[in-house]
């Protein structure tokens, strides 16, 4: 089953959305690429957001070697036209890489502009925050292009610059700066959150990420399309299904891909199983943070049963390795689907009991209600995605707005978008618990279909044409996930650029906003409430071309190794 593409979209974009465009190119799946002049970027951004209520999905840049950089702005127009995504592209020279800043119009681009400065050395004019994002603050030059453009002497000073040590005279120390991280037992991953407190109340906060900066984007660019599937899954071990699916969707959008219906059902099934396990994991982690150990063990006990189903389908627990461009590598047999159905139904009944356990638990409520508030306006302006946005009463779900494939059509699989108007951590918990039930409904429908029918699960991919672009959009457990791929002009197997924008990237940027005004003891809960995944946020790495000495084994050595292991 395929989406019908709308042939009038290019005309619509040319006449109404972006008349400044120099050229217009229809991409697959209702996406239109528009080439613009770099100096129009901020003017267009302003019009898109104020007039069309469009949403900036991501801003990034591609290194064109000798020809400069290509700035890429991806906008979501799904509220105007069905599934319309507009990609603005503007070429800038390497001598003066300073396009106008979009972050001064929409704050959501702030992290993205820090990121392209880190990686490529592009410094947008008038960007509100020019500090390093993923590299250490003292890192000398841009990671990918190697150029070192002049940096402004002084950016806006973060709280870490005027901190007051703890041992100062009590009369002067009206505010104390507490660095949390990079290692902190309450937060599994590495990050530093600078929290400035007056007494017990947080007055300002700042977050420095990049401790997980290992750079899968560049790894995928060097590995090629088919090996990239496995690298993409390793962006994040928790939402590996979401990354696998988004990767293959992006690559399939490079050419006229045909994916069998059965493969789409298996993809939906795995994505939802992944969501269930991720949400259960999150409920456990937050229960642990607020000291509700029973909740932790309850939800992780349920999660193990989801993991068993995933393992019986894919053979793996965490990185599934069954995503392929053009389909899936393994089928779900009738017997397996029939065996999994009663388990999922029983699991749903038990998960339904989590809702009253959370919503009516006085201790849970006293730790979560009103903690980490995020109003609808802040969520909209800051670009929150996923359950965080939905808990602020913003009905945003990629599965409804820009579905990765046709199976999320309500006519095929019935499901609904969950929202909540609590606008706090309690609301985020309720949204996730309710989504567990919605996801298990989707899983049941997929399994019933798979048990009923048979068919192919993979069609061999065709040659990927040069000069094509693909965008994969998907709702990961944490929110909207975007993969952008551009095919190389010279090499049929390697992409020219691969860019990932993860949901945690957006939600983590909002953490300082949520922290202000909260109690110091609530800081881990607020940080946890976005289900922050630093591995997703800091996903980059560059492999040095002249790597270390490589070692290859001779056949005799291999045999000897096999004998030693008793193989």
């Amino acid at each position: 089953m395929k989406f019908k593409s709308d042939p009038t979209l290019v005309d619509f974009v040319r006449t109404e959305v972006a008349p400044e465009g120099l050229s217009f190119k229809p991409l697959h799946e209702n996406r239109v690429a528009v080439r613009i002049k770099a100096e129009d970027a901020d003017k267009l951004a302003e019009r898109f957001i104020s007039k069309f209520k469009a949403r900036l999905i991501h801003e990034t840049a591609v290194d064109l070697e000798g020809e400069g950089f290509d700035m890429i702005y991806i906008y979501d127009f799904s509220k105007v036209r069905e599934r319309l995504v507009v990609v603005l592209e503007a070429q800038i020279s390497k001598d003066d890489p300073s396009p106008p800043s979009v972050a001064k119009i929409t704050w959501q681009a702030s992290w993205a502009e820090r990121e392209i400065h880190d990686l490529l050395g592009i410094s947008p004019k008038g960007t509100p925050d020019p500090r390093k994002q993923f590299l250490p603050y003292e890192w000398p030059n841009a990671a990918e292009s190697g150029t070192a453009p002049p940096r402004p002497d002084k950016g806006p000073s973060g709280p870490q610059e005027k901190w007051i040590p703890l041992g100062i005279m009590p009369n002067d120390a009206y505010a104390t700066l507490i660095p949390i991280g990079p290692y902190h037992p309450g937060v599994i991953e590495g990050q530093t959150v600078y929290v400035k407190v007056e007494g017990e109340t947080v007055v300002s906060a700042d977050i420095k990420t990049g401790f997980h900066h290992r750079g899968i984007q560049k790894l995928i660019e060097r590995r090629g399309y088919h090996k990239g599937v496995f690298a993409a899954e390793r962006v994040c071990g928790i939402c590996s299904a979401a990354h696998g699916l988004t990767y293959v969707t992006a690559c399939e959008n490079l050419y006229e891909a045909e994916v069998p219906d059965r493969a789409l059902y298996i993809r939906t099934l795995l994505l939802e199983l992944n969501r269930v396990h991720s949400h259960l994991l999150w409920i456990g982690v937050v229960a642990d943070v607020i000291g509700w150990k029973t909740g932790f063990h309850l939800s992780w006990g349920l999660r193990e049963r989801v993991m068993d189903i995933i393992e019986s389908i894919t053979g793996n627990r965490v990185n599934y390795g069954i995503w392929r461009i053009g389909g899936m590598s393994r089928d779900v047999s009738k017997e397996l689907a029939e065996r999994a159905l009663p388990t999922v139904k029983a699991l749903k009944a038990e998960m339904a009991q989590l809702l009253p356990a959370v919503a009516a638990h006085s201790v849970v409520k006293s730790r979560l209600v009103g903690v980490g508030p995020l109003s609808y306006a802040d969520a909209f302006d800051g670009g929150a995605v996923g359950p965080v946005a939905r808990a602020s009463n913003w009905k945003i779900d990629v599965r409804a707005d820009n579905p990765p494939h046709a199976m999320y059509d309500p006519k095929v699989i019935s499901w609904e978008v969950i929202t909540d108007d609590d606008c706090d951590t309690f609301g985020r918990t309720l949204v996730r618990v309710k989504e567990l039930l919605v996801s298990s409904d989707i899983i049941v429908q997929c399994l019933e279909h798979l048990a009923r029918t048979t068919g192919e699960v993979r069609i061999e991919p065709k040659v990927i044409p040069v000069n094509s672009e693909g965008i994969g959009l998907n709702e990961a457990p944490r929110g909207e996930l975007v993969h952008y791929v551009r095919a190389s002009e010279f090499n049929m197997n390697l992409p020219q650029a691969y860019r990932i924008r993860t949901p945690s990237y957006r939600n983590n940027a909002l953490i300082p906003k949520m922290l202000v005004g909260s109690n110091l003891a609530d800081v881990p809960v607020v940080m946890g409430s976005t289900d922050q995944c630093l591995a997703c946020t800091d996903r980059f790495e560059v492999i040095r071309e002249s790597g270390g000495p490589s070692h290859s084994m001779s056949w005799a050595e291999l045999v000897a190794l096999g004998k030693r292991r008793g193989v």
Partner: protein
Amino acid sequence: MAVNWARSGSPWLIHFNTGGCNGCDIEFVAAITPVYDVERFGIKLQGSPRHADILAVTGPVTVQIAHSLKRVYDQMPSPKFVVALGTCAVSGAPFRNCYCVHGGVDSVIPVDAYVPGCPPKPEAMIDGIAKLLQKIRGTKG
């Protein structure tokens, strides 16, 4: 001998993610939950390095976090042991030689037990830790 025997009966664990993808971390946490129940070996997850005997490290060591790993290791009281969980922690895996990655855990601190896998199953992690306990006890498994 008796001290080693006693020590191997209640090893307290501290978990450090040095830049991994969370895959090993969730499997490690799963090993603590009742289904795998690592507590039957007397193992307890501990928040502070000053209370811990075993440092369980996951992920390739990034340049930015290397000094924190060293510092946490230095804060642990002797005798201390290190387990590298997952292929990234063992060698750096695909991220080796990245400009931002230092390498495997043993490029920063000494490692006593290696558990390869991407990610290793909780059973494999428990097996690795159990082998380390045998090593502490002074007997070979």
